[in-house]
């Protein structure tokens, strides 16, 4: 069952998600070992495969480093649910085939450690611990197309060979 790691903060930035001191590698497994290190040192010890991160506005602001998405995905996080995302992080997630969820209410309705289940098709986050459903707008079609193809490069390759 997926657990929520909740950070009641806006503007969680790329330097906190993956500090520049680790940018000398693009190895996902190694980046994952430092995921959120400057925000929550303990995160890498707590996180389990399929867990979700929940945060406030402007998640992923700052640099264009896709390493931020790789670190999170490398830590086997299923998705990030935020009130809003910074532009480049949003692009990078989609381009990597990593589904992220924009929800204005999730932060208020999910507590740290709550168990959640996500129905991407229906646009529903089910908070099992609190027994409430939180709806969200699924990503736009063009983004889903890229995600379903497995990422932007797969999408392009498919388009050019179709």
């Amino acid at each position, binding site marked *: 069952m997926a657990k929520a790691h909740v950070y009641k903060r*806006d*503007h969680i*930035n790329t*330097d*906190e998600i993956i*500090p*520049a*001191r680790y*940018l*000398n*590698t*693009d190895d996902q497994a190694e980046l994952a070992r430092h995921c959120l290190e*400057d*925000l929550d040192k303990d995160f890498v010890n707590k996180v389990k495969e399929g867990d979700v991160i929940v945060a406030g*506005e*402007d998640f992923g*602001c*700052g*640099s*264009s*480093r*896709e*390493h931020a*998405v790789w670190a999170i995905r490398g830590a086997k996080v299923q998705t990030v649910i935020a009130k*809003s995302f*910074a*532009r*480049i992080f949003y*692009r*990078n997630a989609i*381009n*990597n085939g990593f589904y992220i969820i924009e929800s204005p209410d999730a932060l208020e309705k999910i507590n740290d450690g709550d168990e959640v289940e996500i129905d991407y098709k229906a646009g529903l986050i089910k908070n099992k611990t609190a027994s409430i459903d939180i709806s969200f707008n699924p990503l736009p079609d*063009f983004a889903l197309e890229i995600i379903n193809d497995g*990422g*932007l*490069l*797969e999408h*392009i*390759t498919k388009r050019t060979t179709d």
Partner: protein
Amino acid sequence: MGMTITEKILAKAVGKAKVVPGQLVDAKIDIVMCHDITTPPAISMLEEKGIDKVFDREKIVVTPDHFQPAKDIKSAELHKRLDGWAKRHNIKYYYKIGRAGVCHALLPEQGHIRPGEVIVGPDSHTCTYGAFAAFSTGIGSTDAAAAIATGQLWFKVPASMKFVLNGSLGPGVYSKDVVLAVIARVGTDGARYKAMEFVGPALKDMSMEARMTITNMAIEAGAKSGIIGFDDVTKQYLDEHLKDKTDYTVYESDSDAQYDAVEEFDCSAIEPMVALPHLPSGGVPIGECAGKEMDQAYIGSCTNGRIEDLRIAAGILKGKQVAIRTLIVPATPVIWKQAKDEGLFDIFYEAGCVISAPTCGACLGGFMGVLAAGEKCVSTTNRNFVGRMGHPESEVYLASPATAAASAVEGKLADPRSFL
């Protein structure tokens, strides 16, 4: 209904007469900027997918800068991957060490930025080039891989916000202070997904260097791009810097173009600003923070590492001694040589500063000036996030080169106007 300059440039890039905000477009890319951190992953992706090609070897500009010269073995490996790729594809504009510099200072200086074009790069401050009436934005590595291979990229056409810069700057006040004041007002996501269009009389007196400091920080308000219209100052810079391809198209916003918001600023009233930790929007006038003790001053980066910035700093440091570690980092080899030839290095040396080779280095906490726990740095860079320049418990105070130099002399945040 009229169009903004941003909409016009994007319309041209998709071969349409008109585009509107929110529309998804596949735009043709004119220039892809590539550096040493985010491009090697893009290269690996292309190799893995078996699409190891470049759309145009003359439209890709490569400059290792972040960890250049290599700070450790891993960065050396990144440089090696970049080098092998650039050579294999015979990239025409590959700036090797000795000619490489901080990307956003180097590309305009070497004549790669032209009005009306679409420029992308896997670096968030790629928005800098908007100072030249171009559309330019930061992307990720996957985007870069796609742009490198196909010369095309998806975009959502951004809505525009207009920033009217009225009045003129007082002595000791610079474009850095203006952009810190703008971000302090709108917040770090006040312009999220938008194009920030800067207009107004205060721009007239600003050099291209000063204008680039403003568009450089558009991302710090969350914007997709920053843009400034074309004028005589732009033309003169381009006349001096464009080399191989000297033609370009000038677009300007229609008088009935649509803006999401219009913000007016009286630049005459702006004072030297310092953005307090840990957000670029933390700007306050120097009067509210002067006296705060610092451990390091950093003068460099794509925001303020240009020759004009070094001249301003030297003007204040001349005949003085710095009280704290002071790092001077000319952003490109050309700037480095200019500063040396103009005698600025002597001034910095006499004052007790250390002068580094062109690099991003400590701006992103990489090397050459990393902060220890609890240390404070007054910096001419663009970002003061937690841990940006080193230890998560260190602090970064963003300021102009003048304020950084004045603070270096006093060892605490200081008003540059008392040094004029």
